[in-house]
C-alpha cells in the first residue's frame, strides 16, 4: 500500500518528469510528491537520530545528515521547482509569484497557500498537451529494455492506480512520527554532548579530542597542570608555579623576579568555570590545547584564555591571556 504509493510517486515525479516546467500537475499529485519526500527524509532522520544517542556515533550521524542534505539539494531541486511551477500553472496563477519565496519569514507561507488552490484549468484543455507527449514517447522512442522484452505482455489494459485515503493518511501519520522521533533524539543527543563537552566529561567531542592528540589522558593531565598552577599561586609557591610554564610565558616579563611581581596581583583566584576550547596538532607535530577559564571574583578581567603546549613529556602553559566576554 504505502510502498506502492512511494514507488509510483517517485517514478512519476522524479524519473518520468524530472525537470518539466511546461505542464500542469494536480493538487493531489503535487502533495503526494511532497508527502513522499518528507516520508523518506523522516525515515533517514529518525534512524540516524536514534543512532546518534550513542556518543561514539554522534559526529558521524550529524555528518551523514549533512551529506544527505547536500545530495538531496543537488538532485531534488529540479523536480521540486518543476512541480511547483506546474502547480501554479494549474491554478491559473502566474509562475513568477514563486519568487515571493525570497521574502524572509512569510514568503514560504504565501507560496504554500498559493499551492493549495483549486485546479482552475478545464479537464479537456489540461489533458491534450500531456496526451500528445506521452503518445510520442510511448510509440517511437521509449524502447527500454523491459518494453522490448515484454512486447507480448503489453496487450492487457492498465487499470488506473488509486490508493484511497487510507494509505495517504497512514503515510502522513508515519511521516509525523518519524520527524518527531528524529528531531527529538537529535535535540537530546546534542544537548547531552554539549553538556559533556562543557564539563570535560567523556562524550563525542572528548573522544575526538583524544583521537586528535593520540592519547586518552592528555586533556585531563593538562587540566591538572592548570589547577596545580593556580593552587601554587594561591599558596605563594612561585617556584613550583614557574616550573609549569613554557619558555615563552616565562620570558614574557623578563626575569623570574619581575614575573613574581606581576603575578602577585592575581593572588587568591578561584576557578569557577573551566572548559576545553579546542585541540590541534600543528605542522611540527607539536600538540596544543586551548582552555577557557572563568574565575569566581568579578573584578576585571574575569575570563582567561589559556594555551598549553606539550613539550618535555609534560603539558606546559604557553600563554595566559585575559579577555572580556562580550
Amino acid at each position, binding site marked *: 500500500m504505502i510502498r506502492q504509493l512511494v514507488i509510483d510517486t517517485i517514478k512519476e515525479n522524479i524519473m518520468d518528469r*524530472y*525537470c518539466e516546467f511546461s505542464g500542469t500537475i494536480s493538487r493531489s499529485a503535487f502533495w503526494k510528491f511532497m508527502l513522499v519526500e518528507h516520508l523518506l527524509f523522516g525515515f533517514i532522520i529518525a534512524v540516524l537520530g536514534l543512532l546518534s544517542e550513542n556518543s561514539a556515533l554522534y*559526529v*558521524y550521524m550529524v*555528518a*551523514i545528515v*549533512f*551529506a*544527505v542534505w*547536500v*545530495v538531496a539539494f*543537488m538532485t531534488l*531541486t*529540479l523536480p521540486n521547482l518543476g512541480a511547483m511551477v506546474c502547480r501554479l500553472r494549474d491554478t491559473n496563477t502566474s509562475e513568477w509569484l514563486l519568487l515571493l519565496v525570497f521574502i524572509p519569514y512569510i514568503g514560504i507561507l504565501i507560496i504554500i497557500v498559493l499551492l493549495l488552490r483549486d485546479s482552475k484549468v478545464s479537464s479537456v484543455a489540461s489533458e491534450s498537451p500531456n496526451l500528445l507527449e506521452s503518445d*510520442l514517447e510511448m510509440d*517511437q*522512442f521509449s*524502447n*527500454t*529494455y*523491459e518494453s*522490448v*522484452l515484454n512486447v507480448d505482455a503489453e496487450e492487457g489494459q492498465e487499470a488506473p492506480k488509486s490508493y484511497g485515503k487510507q494509505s495517504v493518511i497512514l503515510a502522513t501519520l508515519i511521516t509525523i512520527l518519524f520527524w518527531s522521533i528524529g528531531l527529538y533524539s537529535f535535540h537530546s543527543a546534542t544537548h547531552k554532548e554539549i553538556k559533556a563537552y562543557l564539563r570535560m566529561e567523556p562524550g563525542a567531542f572528548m573522544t*575526538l579530542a583524544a583521537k*586528535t592528540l593520540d592519547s586518552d589522558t592528555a586533556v585531563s593531565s593538562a587540566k591538572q597542570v592548570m589547577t596545580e598552577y593556580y593552587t601554587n599561586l594561591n599558596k605563594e609557591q612561585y617556584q613550583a608555579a614557574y616550573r609549569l610554564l613554557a619558555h615563552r610565558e616565562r620570558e614574557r616579563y623578563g626575569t623570574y623576579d619581575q614575573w613574581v611581581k606581576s603575578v602577585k596581583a592575581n593572588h587568591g583566584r578561584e576557578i569557577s568555570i573551566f572548559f576545553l*576550547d*579546542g*585541540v*590541534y596538532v600543528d605542522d611540527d607535530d607539536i600538540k596544543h590545547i*586551548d582552555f*577557557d577559564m572563568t574565575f569566581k571574583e568579578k573584578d576585571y578581567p574575569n575570563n582567561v*584564555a589559556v*594555551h598549553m603546549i606539550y613539550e618535555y613529556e609534560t603539558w606546559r602553559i604557553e600563554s595566559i*591571556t*585575559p*579577555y*572580556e566576554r562580550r
Partner: protein
Amino acid sequence: MEQNMIYDVSYMEALKRGFKQYATFSGRASRSEFWRFMVSREIIINSLGVLSIIVDMIFGENSDISDYTIWLFIIMHLIYLMPTIAYSSRRLHDIGRSGMTLFMVLIPIVGFFVLLSDFVKQGDVSSNAYGERTSYVVVTPTEEEQIGIERTASLREDVTMGALAIILYIWVFVYDFIPAAWIAYNTSGFITIP
C-alpha cells in the same frame, strides 16, 4: 564503429565509448549513454575514495601509502577530465545547443541547475545540425553474440548503480567532512582581547 553508435549501451560499453571518444567534440550522445558513463565515473572515483579511507584506517593518516592513494584519486580525476568534457558537449549537441554552453557551469548556483536540466532533456528526435541520433536500439541477450556488443542495462541495473554511486559519494563526503569541521572549529575557538 559508426554503426555501433546506434545501440543502447550497458555500463561497460558506456565506459569504453567514453574513453575511445575522449576528444570527439562533434556528433551526439544520448541521455542513456551519457548518464551511464557519469554514474560509472562516480562509482570508480568514489571507490578510490573509499580505498583511501580503508588505507588510512589500517596504516594511519600520515603514512606514505595514504599519500599515494590521494595521488591516485587526483590522477583518476585528471584522467576522467577530457572524456567528461567531450561527452558533455556531445550531450549538448544532442539537444541542439552548441558545446560552448558548457561554460554555464561557471555561473554560481543557477548555472549548475540550468546545465543539469539540459543534460536531462530528451534529445532531438531526428537528425539535427550535429548529426544523427545515437543509442536508440536496444540490444537483447539474443543479439549479443551476433553483434558483439553487451546487452543494454535493465532498469534494475540502473537503479542499483545509481544507489551505489550515491552511497559511495556520501561515504567519502562524511569522511572528509568530519576532520575539516573539527579543525575549523578548533582554529576559531581561541578568543583574544580585541
